């Protein structure tokens, strides 16, 4: 029995940056995107689900898949020799059978990365190649459609606010909230805290080296050199700006007010509204 650490976040909130920093810390060397590919990968890989259960997930309904996902995590947790780190963009939810989709019994903890939803809206519009207004609408009420069948099981989308609350208030789960803004301001302190939470031994020198290896400038240069495999094809570059508060120069006052209207309670809780 080993168990999972979930690296959870709404999309475009710094999850990949954190995974890269943890990779650099674990491996003690500069990031190589080719080596990084597949590390601390998403929890909902179709191939893993299908292989563990012996079924084609594309023959199952979304409700059947959700109902079976705890069985997959339990099976793999029983086999893995050491704790597993998995990226999650899905909310913490109950399955149609009424049990947590991420079973507490095999959950060692969750690092929940959160970012000002006004900056998320800007990043999301670039990621999805849509307008700011559409990104804002998506964060409020995502469509319930089943997309094409790709390598990942379809996300169970919820609003940004619901996403934040689902993880921060997940019953029986040890959660470490991490703010993207704090990563930008003081990554060494944040990375040290996350490493401790994960039970990793990390000397300050190792932390400093990992942070240095995954500065935004470094990642951007690396992406120009060899490309980044997790970038959507239509997006120009994955590592775009990497800053906090950029929304002020991009969103109209009305757009910012709309986001505040949709997610105000959760924003206040995280210190995004004064």
């Amino acid at each position, binding site marked *: 029995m080993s168990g999972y650490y979930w690296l959870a976040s709404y999309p475009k909130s710094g999850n990949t940056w954190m995974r890269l920093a943890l990779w650099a810390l674990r491996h003690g060397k500069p990031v190589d995107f080719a080596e990084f590919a597949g590390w601390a990968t998403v929890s909902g890989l179709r*191939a893993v689900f*299908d*292989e563990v259960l012996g079924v084609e997930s*594309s023959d199952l309904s979304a409700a059947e898949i959700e109902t079976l996902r705890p069985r997959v995590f339990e099976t793999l947790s029983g086999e893995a020799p050491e704790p597993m780190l998995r990226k999650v963009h899905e909310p913490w939810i109950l399955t149609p059978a009424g049990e947590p989709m991420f079973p507490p019994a095999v959950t060692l903890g969750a690092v929940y990365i959160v970012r000002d939803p006004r900056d998320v809206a800007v990043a999301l519009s670039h990621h999805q190649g849509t307008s700011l207004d559409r990104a804002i609408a998506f964060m409020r009420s995502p469509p319930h459609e*089943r997309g094409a069948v*790709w*390598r990942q099981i379809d996300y169970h989308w919820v609003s940004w606010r619901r996403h934040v609350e689902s993880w921060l208030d997940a019953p029986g789960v040890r959660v470490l909230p991490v703010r993207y803004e704090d990563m930008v301001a003081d990554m060494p302190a944040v990375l040290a805290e996350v490493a401790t939470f994960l039970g990793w031994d990390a000397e300050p020198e190792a932390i400093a080296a990992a942070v240095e290896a995954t500065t935004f400038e470094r990642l951007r240069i690396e992406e120009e050199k060899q*490309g980044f*495999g997790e970038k959507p*094809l239509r997006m120009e570059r994955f590592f775009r700006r990497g800053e906090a508060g950029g929304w002020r120069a991009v969103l109209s006052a009305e757009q910012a007010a709309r986001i505040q209207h949709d997610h105000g309670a959760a924003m206040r809780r995280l210190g995004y509204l004064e």
Partner: protein
Amino acid sequence: MTTVRILCGLKVVSDLPLPDLPPWTGDGRAPDVAIRLGAVPDRLDAPVVAGPLLQMGTDGTCRFAIPGVAAYLVEGGHTVTVRAEMAPDSTDVRVFLLGTVFGVLCAQRGLLPLHASCVAIGGRAIAFSGVSGAGKSTLAAAFHRHGHSVLSDDVTVVDVEAPGGPLVLPSFPRLKLWDDVMSAFALPREGLERSRAALDKFHVPLDGRFQAEPLPLAAIYRLEEARLPSQDRAERLNPVTAVQSLEEDIYRCRTIQRLLSPARRFHLLTRIADAAPSYRLWRRMGLGDLDAQVAALAARQPSDGGGRA
């Protein structure tokens, strides 16, 4: 009512209607496989594989179940017992029968099921393997659209030790396609059966372009997703890597590999690697590049006659 059909050259008698399979037109020999409605135990005694849905006993007997649909007991490569939780003639019951259950049954008979779709190019069988979501069915559908015959969709059964083998045994004359693929190919949905009542996924008949006779396996392409334009390419695998890759291509590998001893498995996979080159095919996902991919892949194969590629 009993129906008699053909599947991978086997004579199948079934209590369930099997409209996916062609009728048996061969001789009056005893059936090779019987599919019966009946009782299925809730669990196997002392299973060697005890997955949440799929279990295997020491003698290779398998139990597979989809809650709310059906439980299946597969024994000796010749008998499948089905306990349906819905109307036994619904497509939902058949989908899993012709998926996991079918793969297990073939493996029990000493055949090697690969997680692959397979098309005929120049009188040879070309298989496209890959993980779920890699685009196996979509690529087979694209070949079909360009006039090629199809041998199998998702499960490709190989008779490794047949004379002239390894041979691909044709499975059934239909593809399972999602709504978006059908739209992209302008395929009509009227009159087509949904593969599951609740899914926008359809059984599309091959309309005369089903390759009903076995063909020698000539190449295996393992589909990989190219995330960067620079990655688009086919890379020939060396014999050692080819055997490793084939091992991952075994259908329902976690369970089915247990039906073969490691030595036997190595023997079969080596025979395949000796007879047919394996490639890793990096390709762009999405429906836009398919025509070009089909043309490029068809051009890679020798036109006819001659030795294997």
